[in-house]
Every structure is written in C-alpha cells, then in structure tokens.
C-alpha cells in the first residue's frame, strides 16, 4: 500500500520534470540524436513545516539545470524529485526505489542530517554518488567519511563556530546563548563555544514547540549581555525575531545561525533588519555566477534564494563540470570521483575546493539582514570571518585513495 503510493508519487515527479526537459530540448536548436540521459534523484523535504527549505533546494537545482540547458556535461539530464517528508524510513524506501527501479545515477540534496544518515548506506553501497547540498553531519566528515559521498555545503559545526569567532572579533565579552533543547541545539552551543573565549552569561534551552519567548526575553533584558547567540530554525526563529524586536531588545546584537535567512525573512520582514547570521554565501556576493543565480531565482520562482538553493545550484554546476571531464562516461567510478573532487566549476561562492574528506574548504562570512532595493529583505556579507576553513573533523577521516 505504502509502496504503491510511493510509486505513484515518484512517477509523477519523473514525468513532470521529463516534460519540462522535453520542452527545453525542443526550444534548443540542436536536433541531432541525443545520448541517453543522466538520471539524478533530488531528495528534499517538500511536506510538513520545513517544506520551505526543501523547496529552495529543489528550485536551486532546477534553475542550475535550466541554466545548463537541461544538460550535465553534454548529456541530457532527467531530474527525479523525491520528497523525503522528513521521515527517515520514507526517505530510505523512496531512494532505494529510485536507485533500483528508476536507475538513478546520482543522488543529490537532503536538508536534514537525520535523513542524510538514513540514505547514506543505501546510496553509497549501491555504487552511486551521494552529494549533500545542505546536511553536513560530523560523522560523515570524520571517521564515517565515504569515497562515494561529497558535501557541497559545510560541516554543521562550522557555521556555529563562525558565529563564535565573529562574536570574538566584534569584541563582545558577555554573550547569552539560547537554543532548542535537542541534539542540534546542544551542538550549536558547543560549536559557538569552540571559538568564543568570552563569558557565557547564561545558556537557555527552550522546547522545540515553544511559541512565546517572553519569559526568555525578560531574562535576557535582566542579564544585559553584550550580544545573544541563538539557533532557532524555521517558525521558532520567526517568533523569536519578531518578539525580540517588539520587546525593544534589538539594541543588543542578535547573532544567529539558521534563524534569519531568506527562507524565513519574508515572515520576519523589517523585524530582522540588522540581525546577524553566519553563512557560506549571501545573495549580495560579488561575482557573475552569484548575480546570474540570484536574478534567475527571482525571475523564475519570485523569491530571494537562501543558501539551500545556492548550494544546490552549485552542485548542478559541479556535476556538469565532472561529467564533462569524464566525457559523459559515468561507468568508471574512480575517474568520476576524481572529476567531482577537482571541483572545476564557477561557484556562486567565488572560491571553492574539496578537502581530503570531500567536504568543502571555503570561506565563512558574517552576514547581516538588509533591505533590498525592491523592498524585500536579504542577508548581506559584512566581512569574511574564516578563510579557507577546514572542518574540525577532517583529520579523523581515513579516505581510501581508490574505490
């Protein structure tokens, strides 16, 4: 029953994108016979409260493919969109079906680390490459690194550590920390403290279902810290940011990760203006690739993209360069792996290369929310906090030289 339901969904995804690609192929002047298409499974959460993030990821990939005229390295590409529903069991079933039944060559995407952990073995053991465009858990950066796995995003800890370093650089001596009471929240605090040397005046854990932050805001006001650091994904962040502004606390600098980004800014609006976040990329990045990407997203999907979309767009460009390098021949896994690892593509982030654990070695930025000329809000880079940063787990990775 569940399996049939699943089949229907996947087929529809395949046909939908197939039709879109057919249309692009018709529009293109080339009429000669095309080689067999490359099939790519894009795994993203498209239902439930976090669907906004998955939609960004999917749209970023689709725009990348469109800018490449529906081709990866000269071979047409067929995108199979897979909704993981933020449920590991569902993700595994659908990804298995995509690999075994639909013959997917590559799997990209995944917003959440627990979903990535679930699909890791099914994909890599089948001999397909898995490229994470967002989730970057420490396990797979360190001891659990895998020759079939690449991340084009970051290691989760890095982003929080960036804010720790930024707080340090900005000269904040007393910082108040607040995160949800679950593993990722505790990791965020640990990541922040790994680089912050000042005084942590208080650490507050709130339930994941928290709606009203007034108790915590009163506490912050009574402590009068130099700054606060928080990690409040999705709706939690929308509530916190607006209530923080309404409580008149905005004169205390607001440092955050995954709390103010383009996925939540439409709901936070001017309440978030001037608030800080840490990121690998921001829509104001000054390079041609980034400008083309942002303009394309606004035109095509009518929203300002966040890093979820940017990393997915980069991944399309990365795979294009890799397939071109191996002349469209995906059968030699070692050659394909070397071609991906070469990362010979124009990134929206400017500089981009892979480290030994196949995670990026890249710059991290302190970003601030500002108003665009069209009245919408976006994060903008303030300054580079970490340059060519290698994640703290890379040293633990024993990456095999050949597959």
């Amino acid at each position: 029953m569940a399996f049939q339901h699943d089949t229907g969904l996947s087929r529809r995804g395949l046909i939908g994108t197939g039709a879109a690609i057919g249309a692009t192929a018709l529009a293109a002047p080339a009429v000669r016979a095309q080689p067999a298409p490359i099939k790519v499974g894009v795994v993203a959460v498209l239902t439930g409260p976090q669907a906004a993030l998955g939609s960004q990821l999917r749209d970023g990939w689709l725009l990348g493919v469109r800018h490449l005229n529906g081709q990866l390295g000269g071979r047409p590409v067929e995108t199979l969109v897979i909704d993981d529903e933020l449920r590991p069991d569902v993700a595994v079933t659908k990804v298995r079906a995509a690999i075994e039944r639909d013959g997917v060559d590559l799997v990209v995407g995944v917003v959440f680390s627990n979903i990535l952990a679930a699909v890791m073995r099914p994909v890599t053991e089948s001999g397909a490459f898995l490229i994470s465009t967002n989730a970057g858990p420490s396990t797979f950066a360190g001891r659990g690194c895998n020759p079939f796995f690449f991340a084009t995003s970051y290691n989760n800890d890095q982003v929080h550590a960036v804010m720790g370093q930024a707080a340090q650089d900005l000269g904040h001596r007393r910082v108040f920390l607040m995160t949800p009471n679950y593993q990722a929240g505790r990791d965020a605090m640990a990541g922040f403290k790994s680089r912050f040397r000042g005084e942590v005046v208080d650490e507050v854990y709130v339930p994941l279902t928290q709606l009203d932050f007034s108790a915590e805001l009163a506490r912050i006001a009574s402590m009068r810290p130099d700054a606060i650091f928080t990690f409040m994904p999705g709706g939690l962040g929308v509530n916190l940011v607006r209530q923080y502004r309404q409580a008149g606390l905005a004169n205390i600098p607001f440092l955050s990760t995954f709390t103010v980004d383009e996925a939540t800014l439409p709901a936070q609006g001017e309440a978030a203006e001037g608030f800080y976040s840490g990121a690998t990329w921001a829509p104001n990045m000054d390079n041609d690739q980034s400008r083309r990407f942002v303009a394309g997203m606004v035109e095509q999907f009518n929203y300002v993209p966040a890093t979820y979309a940017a990393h997915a767009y980069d991944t399309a460009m990365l795979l294009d360069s890799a397939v071109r390098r191996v002349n469209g021949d995906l059968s030699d896994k070692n050659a394909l792996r070397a071609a991906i690892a070469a990362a010979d593509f124009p990134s929206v982030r400017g500089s981009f290369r892979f480290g030994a654990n196949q995670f990026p070695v890249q710059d991290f930025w302190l970003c601030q929310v500002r108003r665009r000329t069209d009245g919408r809000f976006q994060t903008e880079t303030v300054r580079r906090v970490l340059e060519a940063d290698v994640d703290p787990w890379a040293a633990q990775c024993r990456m095999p030289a050949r597959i």
Partner: protein
Amino acid sequence: MWTPGRRSAACPRASDAPIVARRDAARDRPGFSVNTTLLLVQVLNGLQLGVLLFLIAAGLTLVFGVMDFINLAHGVQYMLGAYLGAALAAATGSFWLALLLALPAALAFGLLLEFLVFRHLYERDHLSQVLATFGVILFLNEGVKVVFGTAPMQMPLPAGLTGGVPIMEGLLYPTYRIAILAAGLGTAGLLWFLVERTRAGMLVRAGAANAPMLDALGVNVRGLFLLVFGFGAMLAGFAGVMAAPILSVEPGMGDNLLILAFVVIVIGGIGSVRGAFIAALLVGLVETVGRGLLPDVLRLFLDASSARQAGAALASMLVYIVMAAILAFRPAGLFPVRR
C-alpha cells in the same frame, strides 16, 4: 544542519570549566529587586498566554461539554483565523479591517465544517470523532500550504499599538500584548455575561449538564449546538488573528496550542467556561513562570549545566505534572459541571 537524530559532538573546543565558573560569578550580580521585577514580568507574560489559551479553550469546552463531541480540529480553526487575518491584512493594509472581516469568515468556515463533517459524527463514538477531526487537521494543514505556500507569513502590528511600555531596564512590554490581555479579559467578561445571564446561556449550561433532558423538554439542541459551535470557531479565529502579529503564521501552528487547550479544559472541568478561564490562566502561568524559574530553582540542588538541561526538560513537563496532581484530587476538574 540541525536534526533530532544528530550524534553528540565531542568537537575539539575550549574546556567548559572556566566558562561555567565565570558565569556563576556573573549570576550573583543582579540583586533581589531585579529578580522581583523579573518575576512580575513573567507573571504578566503568563497571564497573556493564559488569555490566549482561554479564547481557544472556551469554544472547545462548550463543544465538548454540550454535545460530548471531541473536536481536534479546533486548533486548525485558530490557524485559519491567523491565515485569514494575515491575508486580509495584506490585501486591505489595515489590521482592524482584517480583524473585522476575519471574524465572520472564521464563523462561516466553522459552520461550513460543521455542515460538511462534524454534523455526521455526533451520534458516533469518540474514536470516530477523533479520527475524522484529525483527518480535518491533516487536510487543512496541507490546504493552507497549497493556498498560501509553505513559508511562514507575516502580519504587521496594528497602527497605534506598535510601541511598548518600559517595564524594567532595557525591556519594553509591547503595547500590543497589553491589548491582547485586555481583549482576552473583555471576551471572558462577555462570555460570562452570555453564559450566566442570558437565556441562550442558560440553555447552553443546561445542555452541558444534561443534553437528552433538554432535548426532551422541546429545546432544539441541534440548533443550540450549531450556535455554540459557530461561536467557538469564531473565538478560535479571533485568537488566531490576535496571535498572528506576535507568532509565526505557518501550517500546523494550532497543533501545539490544541494540546494545551485540552489540558486547560480537563483541568477546568469539561463544559465549564469559568473552569476554562481559571485553568487557562493557571496553565499560562505555570508554563511561563515555570520555564523562567525552574532552572534557577534546580540550581540549588544540581550543578549549573545539569540544572539548565534538567530545568528545560522539567519545565516542558510541568503543565502535565500540574494536571495530573489536580486530577488526582479533583478527578472531574476544578469546576465540574453538575450532572
């Protein structure tokens, strides 16, 4: 990326010990007077959450009490109110106009749901009601996603209520929250008048006590229930519109509040508006003040870092512990409806 399933990070970092020591020294700095103000602020916050809960719980307790009907979809009506408010505010550019239009829209939608779904469930057992109304939750949560998109929506504060009152140094108490408190208390007063002092209210109370007898006396219980149901839906919608400027308007936003609303009506005594009012304020206070104070109280017995974690965990359970304690002594709630 964040995820519930992530492994613990033993990431190379500075030792915790000096940080903890320094922060404990800092904690002694604020004197007793500051803590009293903080407590007062927390009490105010608790009351404000309480009246919001009351607006939702009032409709729920009447529907449950009068018709013995479990409506899990009540939280979705709160969500719909918030979405209607946000969409209408965006369209008209005025909070007040949006509020004015959202109320009849929420009422109409509640009556539509009653006509399409709930009407067919009154004679069924509780399990069927729970299943069907849970289905309505799923349907409408996905429905708003289709209509309004997955990203959270924004509703601006009403003009004239954007400021705040300085309540302690460095903290403004938003005027809008005071308005919520006032609106909630006003609604409670109005409800008390309607239920205790009008003929319709008398029938509602009679229905809660013994509906079959009321029916036998020739009162149109179905019509009465439709009235109660529509009014309850409108109250939930009102709560949604009022909450929209401070809370994120997103699919599923009513689900967490629904659980608290059920706690409220169980503590208050099912069918009792007065009970719901007292219980809503109690739950709001326990939830807010408990969250603020528990970590500090636990610090008397535990070291700082375990007090923080245990305090946070215990604070989220506190409401349910209070509910269990009250039900142990008063199994029918604080103000049971006499049968």
